[in-house]
């Protein structure tokens, strides 16, 4: 069971959270065209490896937190608040051991 380090509540069981998908997609400005909004809603990278994603701490502090998690090994590299800028280990240069 994933142990997710919520920036506010500390490490908590996955069962306190609700997964909410890819956190790398940015909502376009309201005046963006239909194609841009289509990609925001439907285009997902779905990587086999490191993935920056949303976990909503529904049973805890109710924050949407960002988690960098590996979809193959389930390791978690880092977590951050709703506005945090997190990068994947394989993009930080040098992979984590």
């Amino acid at each position, binding site marked *: 069971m*994933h*142990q997710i380090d919520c920036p506010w509540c500390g490490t908590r069981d996955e069962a306190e959270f609700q997964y909410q998908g890819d956190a790398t997609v940015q*909502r376009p400005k309201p005046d963006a065209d239909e194609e841009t909004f289509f990609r925001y809603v439907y285009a997902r990278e779905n990587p086999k490896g490191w993935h920056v994603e949303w976990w909503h701490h529904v049973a805890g502090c109710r*924050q949407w937190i960002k988690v960098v998690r590996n979809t193959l090994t389930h390791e978690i590299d880092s977590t951050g608040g709703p*506005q945090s800028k997190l990068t994947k280990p394989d993009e930080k240069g040098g992979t984590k051991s």
Partner: protein
Amino acid sequence: MTGVNRVSVGGSRIDRSKEVRFTFDGQSYTGFEGDTLASALLANGVTLMGRSFKYHRPRGCLTAGSEEPNAIVELRSGARREPNTRATMAELYNGLDAQSQNRFPSLKFDIQAINQLLSPFLTAGFYYKTFMWPSSFWEPVYEKFIRKSAGLGKAATQADPDTYEHSHGHCDVLVVGAGIAGLSAALSAGRSGARVILVEEQVAAGGMTSTATDFIDGKPSDEWVAQALDELAGMANVTVRTRTTLFGYYDHNVLAALERVSDHLEVPEAHQPRQRLWTLRAGQVVLACGSHERAMVFDNNDMPGVMLSGAVRAFVERYGAAPGKRVVVCTNNDDGYKTAASLHKAGVEIVAITDARAEPSPAAKLATAAGMKVQCGVIPHKAKGRHRVSAIALQRTDGSSAEIIECDCVAMSNGYSPDVHLVSQTGVAPVWREDILGFVPDTPIRKERSAGACKGTFELNACLQEGHQAGCDAAEAMGFGSGDPGSAGTADEEEITAPLALWRCPGKGKAFVDFQNDVTAKDIQLAHQEGFVSVEHAKRYTTLGMATDQGKTSNVNGIALLAEARGEPIPDVGTTRFRPPYSPVAIGAFAGHERGMEFQPVRRTAMHACGEKLGAVFVEAGQWLRPQYYPKPGEGVMEAIYRESEQVRKTAGICDVSTLGKIEIFGEDAGEFLNRLYINGWKMLAPGKARYGLMLREDGYVFDDGTTSRLADDHYFMTTTTANAARVLAHMEHASQVLWPDLDVHFCSATEQWCGVAVAGPNARAILAKAFGDAIDISNEELPFMGVREFKWNGATARIFRISFSGELAFEVNVPWSYGEAMWDAIWDAGQDHGLIAYGTEALSVLRIEKGHVAGNELDGRTTAADMGLGKMMSSKKPFIGQKMAARDGMIDPQRATLVGVKLKSGASRLRGGAHLVADKNIANAETSLGWITSVCDSPAMGCWIGLAYVRGGLSEHDGKILYAANPIYEESPAVEICSPHFFDPKGERLHG
């Protein structure tokens, strides 16, 4: 001494002063407290305990632990019947009653043993090649027979009366297994001050050490074990839990264990669960799970009385039960000699010891010195006997035949497979070590390390040191390096020589690899011959390792035989994937408290008791219970609903609406925030006003609807549907935290801060005016339609909204939760002389259908605002969530199904939701279906059955026309007239009165 095979020496786990009576297959026996069913049966000279799955060959127990493939019994009876319980793990209690399984009529005379005659045709996978003709025979004939003969025990058919419990544990160091290595690790980690949990599957610690031959610090091993347990018990930071199987190693060092709290009792004690499922979160893990002895693969090696040598030793030392009086030990490694020494000490005759290895090892020389006959370079060829072994035919490793020896028990040891089940659940691939002929763990991926036999270390002294070091390393990794770990203790040196690989003793007969699923060496060759060369293919084709023991004693033999068939070394074949649980776990244990009425918590409104007093029938609404209707004595369901909905429009009705989602919203940008969530505009809504709103998902479909009121410049109060309350709150938290963090908006759920009632009908205002007295003026001038006021009422802060879901003159009144009953009673009393009645969710639905208001059935996650006739609410002046995706061609296609009303004309007594609408009753198919009916009711206001529906072409194409509600499920196809969904008071005059 109870039992013909009871010996006076050993029996560390039994209490010879406490006799226990039990029955097996109706025959009664006596054993001692501390016996298992298997040990007590063996002590009473019973070796025939089961029948194998496919050939129904007679079987006795092979092992003394949870990896037992053969001695599988039905324990207890009635609602507590437990199929497939291992006799080797069932602790004896007075009155224990067990039945053998998978045989008819009895264990001794099993008709299906005829399969042994058919065995030449019943090889692996035969069923894939036959039973195909005639095809109509499959379900009624072939499959019925196969299913009847398949499966082992019979499950109970009534609800499990026992309860199960969950519990959570946390520690710095979790040690799995209380053998020598595990105890040693727990001691060193415990002494360092770290929080340690030690779990052990068996009822007692000590693992596979032999009291007869193993000495630590000069004392017999069991004294060292007792001393270790005392020291651990004295440490407050250490918890030792026996009868607890660590069965699952999940992500992030979270592990799951099953504690058998009451299985050793006839029934659990008061307030105690049968079993407790532990979720353990460990900083570091020390795996000390030991190893599994392998069987030798020779003809008839499945004969009752042929057992693993470690098991024979365990039965004598733990339970004082000798599996036989004349024992032959067949071994390919030094451990066999330990069994010989232990039995010799207990006075059991060792008729012969055969060692596959040509040269006598030091252990062999010791045995010879002790007077036992050792034959080197000799291996078993064939076991003889019928329901019990009577002799063993031997052969020399050079193939020439050796003598036949009379015996009643064969203790065989084909080497030990380190138990890598848990470590491979972490993703570590087991690695083959030729020197010990076993798979051992590769470098750890998680925060764990292995110690002792599960790592391939079998010498006692090495186990002590390795366990001790593992405990220190684990504690240090958790920051407890400074404590004094004390000394590990030393064991006498043992000179161990390498085992000799012996995967198949030559022979023509049936040599078993997987005992329970009857997989023989020939089956593995056939699998290879037919192309199933991958180890995963061979497993699935032969079912090797797919029985209840999951191949613990058979997988490595199977892999070795497959390697020989492929002509490749064992490492190239590899292992199949280990999966939790380590050993089978009751389904009830996973459910824990969540069953029966506690499957999910019940959420009750503040006025639940008021509903009960009025005889309400309640219905589930998500986790809530809501009054569905209030039947008068002798009144049927439909009559009650009809009366309630009719009466509301005549006089007045009161309805508990507390379950609606309620959200308090504050902040200067709250209005702008609502603008971006809802499709309609909110900035211009004045304080004291309410407005209906519709929310979309980002993909353009309707998500939820409800009314939101403005109580002050920077204070709004939103209501959502009961079903979507939690999702709307999460949606808003995403919007405010992620999308628009710069907006000044703050909100929280108030669903249970405010309870609420709707009071609707012509007399509504009179009733409330009487109830409120001069607390507030609810005249139309002071409180116009969609108006909102907050006021004080008998000490409670109250809010009143001129909102109408029923289409009547209506008010919703909210008060804090704990004032709910008082408010209901005040309004109820005031309403008695105004014809006030209580109405439930059914009547509420009738009223809103008559008005054409959409609800849950219409918001099915696939409909757009335009589909519901609310397209014009979509503001073009401001952006909102879902706006862009709602504009896609397919979402605005005129051919989409749109909301209409339907009136029953003829052809059935009622309308039904889920009927499809077709133009021609006789051409009703998927292509001619124009849409479907979502909600229906018997409408007092319209005097007939009416409903809402989505139809392609909508009103523009079908208004006033007749369509047919095709309903093959109910075999009816009534004619319906299409009309506007706003059946009653379409202009809403009654709202504004």
